[in-house]
């Protein structure tokens, strides 16, 4: 098991290197605005632009730039400095991570609280009114793009422009350390919007998995033992049916931590997704690279976590 994890971690590092390479190539090959010119501002003299280009290291050869970049990352854990603001990428990410973390954790809790019970009830009461209503609304929410649902929700409930401004500070993010109450109310809407689609997906996923599990022979055995139906469903059914849900959950958390670009943009939350979006707009290569790497790292870690979780969840899986 330890060797297995070690091997996976090494592979993860190789993957991260490849992600670095890919973003670098994309950035250099695809046309983008000249970062030096952007930074110099309007009406800057060619000398100033050249000076800035030299400072940013953009006058070196592409290969040399890549070498500097890669050695900085892997040897000094230095992700460079923003072309745009001059701040270090690490500190930018550090500033933005709490918002993304807040958004992710709240949304995950909410969608699990919604999705799991709905999935179980739908599976157990299959083809009843409850099931059809739940799955119908799941389909409804799954079909709505987050940015659209987000705007609709803002239109209805935002504290300033909303028709029913019942949530104070709904679209102005406040850090948890600044004011925990405002932090909570400002995130309620984004949590719900993000959780709505995800809860729908999770309830459908769990329903399908549980229906399949409940037709297994070992469920019949559990019933034949004379166990109460609730125990049959929870201890024998859900325990086995939840495995695929946990896989998807880990990957979703990984992806969300990398930045929920749409949700963060719609609700103006200063998170990683928003940072990434702004960096792309400003051709701020080090920041783009930093956020992409961070997202890739979260996905890779999530994958490793899934594999380890599997070994604990399903005793038939043992890595050697």
């Amino acid at each position, binding site marked *: 098991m330890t060797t297995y994890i070690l091997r996976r971690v090494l592979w993860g590092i190789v993957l991260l290197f490849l992600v670095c390479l890919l973003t670098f190539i994309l950035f250099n090959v695809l046309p983008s605005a000249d970062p030096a010119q952007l930074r110099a501002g309007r009406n800057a003299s060619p000398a100033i632009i050249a000076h800035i280009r030299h400072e940013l290291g953009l006058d070196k050869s592409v290969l040399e730039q890549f070498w500097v970049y890669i050695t900085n990352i892997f040897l000094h854990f230095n992700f460079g400095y923003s072309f745009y603001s001059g701040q270090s990428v690490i500190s930018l990410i550090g500033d933005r991570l709490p918002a993304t973390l807040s958004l992710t954790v709240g949304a995950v809790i909410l969608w699990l609280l919604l999705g799991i019970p709905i999935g179980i009830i739908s599976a157990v009461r299959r083809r009843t009114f409850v099931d059809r209503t739940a799955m119908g609304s799941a389909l409804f929410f799954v079909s709505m793009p987050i940015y659209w649902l987000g705007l609709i929700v803002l239109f209805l409930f935002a504290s300033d422009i909303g028709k029913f401004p019942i949530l104070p500070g709904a679209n102005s993010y406040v850090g948890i350390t600044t004011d925990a109450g405002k932090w909570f109310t400002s995130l309620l809407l984004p949590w719900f919007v993000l959780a709505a689609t995800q809860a729908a997906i999770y309830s459908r996923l769990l329903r399908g998995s549980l229906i399949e599990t409940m037709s297994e022979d070992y469920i019949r*055995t559990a019933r*034949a033992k004379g166990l109460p*139906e609730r125990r049959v469903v929870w201890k024998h059914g859900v325990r086995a049916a939840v495995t695929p849900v946990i896989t998807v959950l880990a990957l979703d958390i990984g992806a969300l931590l990398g930045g929920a670009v749409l949700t963060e943009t719609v609700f103006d939350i200063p998170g990683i997704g928003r940072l990434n979006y702004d960096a792309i707009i400003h051709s701020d290569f080090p920041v783009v690279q930093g956020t992409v790497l961070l997202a890739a790292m979260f996905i890779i870690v999530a994958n490793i976590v899934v594999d380890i979780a599997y070994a604990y969840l399903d005793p038939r899986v043992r890595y050697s």
Partner: protein
Amino acid sequence: MSPLLDVKDLRVTFETEDGVVHAVDGISYSVDTGRTLGIVGESGSGKSVSSLTTLGLTRTEGAKVSGEILFDGNDLVAMSDDELRSIRGNQIAMIFQDPLSSLHPFYKVGWQLVEAIRAHRSVSGKAAHSRAVELLDLVGIPDANRRANQYPHEFSGGMRQRAMIAMALANEPKVLIADEPTTALDVTVQAQILALLDDLQQRLGMAIIIITHDLGVVAETADEIAVIYAGRIVEHGSTAQIFKSPQHPYTWGLLTSIPRLDIQRDEELVPIAGRPPSLIHRPAGCFFNPRCPYARDEMRRIDPRLEPVAGESDHQVACLLEPEVRTRIWKGLQEGQSPASLRTLASPLRTQASAPAAQGANEVSE
């Protein structure tokens, strides 16, 4: 005294999108303490459904059940879910065909046994665990203490079935229903499991119902055999009667399609032609007529009843062929003649000459 388990005119139907499935259509049998009943039939004949219904396990599938299943004088069909649950796994236990898929892959074998014990008895976890180890030992699993801490996938096929049996025995049931207990196992292991069931019955004195498609499985173990076809019992008798003087063409088919070492035969095995009928659109007349080599016109109209075989006590058959015709055909089959060559024995000409066979049978209105 009434028998321990007495099934009377049990009918089980399922509503499906294609129509009503008549899985079990009016079967009756009984089994008493210390006795073994074999229920034999092809897959899809309704043999498993009848036993699952005994435990109330078809209720969740939306089955409609009528008739009576009297256990110790109480009707299981009429019982509430909770009452039935207190009997299930406690006084009536069941083991299934595939022991790998029937044990939960995520839980240790010992844990699963403990759960079975504690479902019906309020004992401490520790006491239940030592009882579990004791049970594993009882069914012949070596090193039971260590084995209790292993997962089902760490057991071999035969060991898993032993563990299933141990689980079924957890609360010393009065009736053990074994649904195809050996089908998924190697032949050598099959014999061990059957011997184990026999041995446990002698020690614990429970009634056993063995459900199988293989007459060979029940030949040694069962006291009596019910042959089931398309949801009905077509022949019922003692094991000796079924093997020595079988009366139904379907039973003949089952017997002549088994390879036997004790009889010198040059002829090849005779499979039963055709497939079991749909339980939604059942044939008119005798359900077996489309596959029966000896079927005559009136058998496509008249539905035979299960009736006593003349001269043999407790032997019943549902067949319109005359008793002497049946005796002659079985004799011919035993001599190695083919069903086709024996057809003429059942020809319509003879029927007119002999006594009316349809006495007491229902005319099917179409």
